[in-house]
């Protein structure tokens, strides 16, 4: 396994390199610069500012310099917040996004797997139709509809939670639901599909014949292979959870990295945009690796290739 992980990490390097290169030149192709929106800057000042940040050097040298800095773990100064570095900004805001993402993931897995199991217990009865109908509705309610809807019902009408903010434990509930329910719906469908395949197999009949309670059969014997399709979906879901957090952070006014990223793009804060993109790419790659490892651990027939 360690060699496998090592190889996968090595394979991730060219992908990251590609991401950095594409984004770096894409940003520079764009019209406007980090200081162009501040109207009344004398040309001399502008020149000095650009010189200060090295923006007057040839583009390719800037690119090489940036690559070198990134390799040393330095994402550079922010152009928009003169007193702060990108590393500081990310350290400030990333924990919030990470917490939100983990709650969302937990919601998705918890509700999704549970609904999938419930739907398998009595196939083609209301116990099956109800969770699956809910799942189809969940798939068709995107975050930016669900979030405002949840606020409308649970904070404006019922008054159970704060509409916005990220301070108390209660503030976590609505954003996590908003982020997680869409993926819960997919996971529920995949879990049900996986379980229904597994449940027809001989060893499940054996387990039942031994007289094991149905709950044990489902939770212990069927779930492990049955959850594999849902697990494979978690890789692509990670990217979705990240972009979903843009919307959730905007809707609920959460001081996370997603909101910071959209603002940075508007401000042409090149280094901050690049830093966040690199971080996202790293997160997606790591998460895909985790999912692949979990798949092999759960499925003894699969090996680390």
């Amino acid at each position, binding site marked *: 396994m360690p060699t496998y992980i090592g190889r996968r990490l090595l394979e991730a390097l060219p992908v990251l390199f*590609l991401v950095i290169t594409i984004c770096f030149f894409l940003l520079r192709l764009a019209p406007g610069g980090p200081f162009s929106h501040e109207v009344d800057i004398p040309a001399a000042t502008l020149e000095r500012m650009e010189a200060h940040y090295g923006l007057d050097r040839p583009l390719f040298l800037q690119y090489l310099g940036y690559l070198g800095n990134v390799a040393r773990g330095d994402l550079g100064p922010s152009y928009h917040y003169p007193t702060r570095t990108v590393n500081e900004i990310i350290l400030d805001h990333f924990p919030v996004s990470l917490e939100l993402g983990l709650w969302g993931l937990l919601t998705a897995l918890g509700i999704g797997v549970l609904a999938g199991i419930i739907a398998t217990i009595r196939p083609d009865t209301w116990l099956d139709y109800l969770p699956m109908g809910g799942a189809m509705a969940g*798939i068709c309610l995107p975050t930016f509809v669900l979030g405002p809807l949840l606020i409308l019902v649970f904070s404006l009408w019922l008054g159970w939670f704060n509409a916005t903010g990220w301070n108390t434990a209660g503030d976590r509930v609505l954003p996590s639901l908003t982020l997680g329910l869409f993926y819960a719906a997919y996971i529920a469908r995949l879990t049900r599909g996986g379980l229904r395949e597994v449940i027809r197999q001989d060893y499940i009949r054996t387990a039942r014949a031994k007289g094991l309670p149905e709950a044990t059969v489902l939770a212990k014997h069927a779930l492990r292979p049955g959850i594999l399709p849902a697990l494979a979906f978690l890789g692509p879901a990670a990217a979705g959870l990240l972009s979903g957090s843009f919307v959730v952070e905007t809707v609920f006014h959460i001081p996370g990295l997603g909101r910071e*990223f959209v603002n940075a793009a508007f401000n042409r804060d090149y280094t901050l945009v690049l830093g966040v993109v690199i971080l996202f790419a790293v997160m997606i790659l790591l998460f895909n690796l985790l999912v692949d490892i979990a798949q092999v651990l759960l499925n003894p027939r699969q090996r680390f290739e």
Partner: protein
Amino acid sequence: MTRETSHPIAPASPRAHLSPGRLAWERLKANRMAMAGLVFLILFSSACVVGPWLSPYAFHEQPRIAEGAVPPGAEHWLGTDHRGRDLATRLFYGGRISLLVGLLATAVSLTIGVLYGAVSGFAGGKTDSLMMRAVDILYALPFTVFVILLMVFFGRSLILLFLAIGAVEWLTMARIVRGQILSLKAMAFVEAARTLGQRPGRLLSRHLLPNAAGAIIVYTTLTIPNVMLLEAFVSFLGLGVQPPMSSLGLLINDGATSMEAAPWLLLVPGLAFAMTLFSFNFLGDGLRDALDPRIRD
């Protein structure tokens, strides 16, 4: 009748006479959810096309600007927004834009995906593994981020929006087409055509792609809602379609900011959007069942 009895082997069922297309249509008709989706899509898209002409208001006109948001009533069927604009009119215009972007972006992704997948699967060998490795790498990139960057930096034109979305949504299509071509390539009729001297380009366009059409149609139906979702997402963040023009994502965003005083501004476009996605998904699922040649009854 006489011709039927003269058949040496009696047909297994009366359905055996139907052409493949007719058979698929019969199967689709039996799927109630898929048909409900199809009916809704036809109704909603014709409303979006015709609605703005029939409506007495324009999408940017503010007949009730002094009164703020007016709830649904006889004069404004779906009420007006906080700027006094007729919501029904804006919904139809928004639906037009969303459906248009959905179709055009899907067309872009369809073109790229089918070409890429077909070439990769047809070439096989080293070329194929190289091309598919590139797709794997692209899968790992945070694409939503790229769409956001493109919209921020290169202006918010509709054309750019659907090009950008189409350019990121082709990956799965390429994989599906490549898989189809790979398995079709090994079949006897392709071998026969090749032996008869058919050139590769014609082989691909006459024999391979038509046989992959089922999978392509199904996946296209499932791509449209994804694309519309992405468009609405970008518009929701304020980066897509620009006011005073409307799109479903923009309407939902507007509705979210004024939902306490005027909940219908959120509920109406939200519901319309959810129903559209619902319909496309059910129609796609139904088409998959109807076109899958492995299920013949």
